[in-house]
């Protein structure tokens, strides 16, 4: 899928740097650039600590602790959202963005029923009536193949299985027809067969509702199946970026090649599994530190 240049991207991140306490010498995100077209799924892939979740958090304005944006722009449908006052960002987030988190248990309030947790966004931010919101929630639960939506709406999170909870969160994410969804390792905690069903659901919902999707994962296999484009990250730096097919077929960097060589494949049992060589990560770390020194000057 190629995007004609006339279309305003759903999300455009330009030269984004995030640092602890705003200290430019120690950046968590290092001059990140990426563009996601409306209706596109963009994968953020890398090992733990690569900063892939950090990008989603920056877009949502929910950076943890002392992490601060030190430079860069985030355009959401052409509008710069970094400078927005908190209240406006909150409304924008409620109306037009959504998050599918990794752990469906901690993301749901254990002491509230499922129903209001899905409809909150509609009632409290978008001003729908409760009856209308309930109708919509029921329809969405039906769309994510939950057989008895009324029972699930009345249930508490602990009464549902992991796969069911993740479906509930997918329904919640799509309930207000958002323009951008950040999915943060949404299937890492699930069994492989459940993962396949959930990925199918996310892709189908995304195609039907046409949101742009930022998909965080450490699994190149998952990227291959759901993402049209991808950024490979190491140490908060985009090592490689492009169409998923191109990158998987002909990775341009040593690091991406090494990640692929470390991924086990049942169809290639005789291929040797090699961990990413320390000299590759050391070289990237050195490059990152060098870039930070230049950057801090």
């Amino acid at each position, binding site marked *: 899928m190629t995007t004609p240049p006339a279309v305003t991207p759903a999300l455009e991140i330009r030269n984004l740097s995030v640092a602890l306490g705003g200290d430019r010498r120690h950046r968590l995100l290092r001059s990140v650039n990426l563009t996601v077209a409306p209706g596109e799924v963009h994968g953020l892939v890398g090992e733990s600590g690569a900063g892939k979740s950090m990008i989603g958090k920056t877009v949502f304005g929910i950076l943890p602790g002392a992490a601060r944006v030190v430079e860069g722009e985030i355009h959401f449908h052409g509008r710069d959202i970094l400078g927005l006052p908190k209240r406006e960002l909150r409304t924008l987030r409620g109306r037009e963005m959504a998050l599918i988190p990794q752990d469906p248990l901690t993301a749901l309030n254990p002491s509230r029923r499922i129903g209001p947790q899905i409809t909150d966004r509609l009632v409290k931010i978008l001003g729908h009536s409760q009856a209308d919101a309930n109708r919509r929630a029921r329809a969405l639960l039906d769309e994510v193949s939950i057989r008895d939506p009324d029972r699930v709406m009345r249930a508490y999170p602990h009464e549902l299985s992991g796969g069911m909870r993740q479906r509930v969160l997918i329904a919640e994410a799509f309930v207000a027809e958002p323009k951008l969804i950040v999915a943060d390792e949404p299937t890492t905690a699930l069994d492989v067969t459940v993962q396949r069903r959930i990925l199918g659901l996310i892709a189908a919902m995304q195609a039907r509702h046409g949101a742009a999707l930022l998909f965080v994962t450490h699994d190149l296999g998952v990227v291959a199946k759901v993402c049209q484009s991808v950024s490979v990250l190491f140490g908060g730096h985009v090592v490689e970026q492009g169409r998923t097919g191109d990158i998987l077929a002909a990775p341009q960097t040593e690091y991406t090649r090494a990640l692929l060589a470390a991924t*086990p494949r049942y169809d290639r049992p005789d291929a040797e599994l090699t961990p*990413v060589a320390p000299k590759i990560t050391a070289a990237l770390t050195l490059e990152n530190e060098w870039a930070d020194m230049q950057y801090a000057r």
Partner: protein
Amino acid sequence: MTMFTVRDLTLALPNLNAKRAFRPAPAITILSDLSFDIPAGACVGIVGESGSGKSTLGRTLVRLYEPTGGSVVFDGTDITHLSPEEIRPLRRNLQVIFQDPSSSLNPRHTVAAIVEAPLRLHGSANPVADARAALDAVGLSRAFASRYPHELSGGQRQRVGIARAVALRPKFIFADEIVSGLDTSTQAQVIALLKDLQRELALTIAFVSHDLSVVRHLCDRLIVMSAGRIIEAGETAAIFEHPQHAQTRALKDAIPLPEIDDSWLTA
């Protein structure tokens, strides 16, 4: 040589979810009529969906659960109903590596103390030296011995778990989803390590996982489970070539290979 001979193994546990006040909990059958052998020196993959009983089977092999029916013979000894006292001397040959090393390593103990504990318990002549040898074997240098679990990365913690399990030079290790929480590169490291250790120490391993790609790389034999029963068993290569059971195929097809395939999501 056979390490395990399992015949008609059945396990029923009290179902506390269905328990009513002041009444005994009704029994729920977790494993029913499992029969299989594990040859010495084999690495057997136990796979299945969550809830299929694969971890429970592993735990029953190392007698963390007592079977309610059938028999488990380990290395010539019937361990089906041995009392805790009777099984203790055998424990040095029945080791476990747990899924989550951050909850299975004592946070108040140093790495050295953690690896030495089973050595002391089983009367090693020189626990300090043996623990060092075990840490060397998993590629953790001397510097790690005095650290605490929270000071380690996930992969290093899993190595400590492995070092603790191999320190006694056991005959059998049950590895319960030990790479599912790790990064791709760390996972490749741990798989390579396990392969090396198996060869060097002539270990027999039962490796529980839901990732058939990992299992294909590591295990020479396979047991596929569903709802507490074995639906397929045999050599890994043969099962991958001609899976007999629809659920085995489903498990295999559910693995996303890193290549473009538009039909995968909709199939």
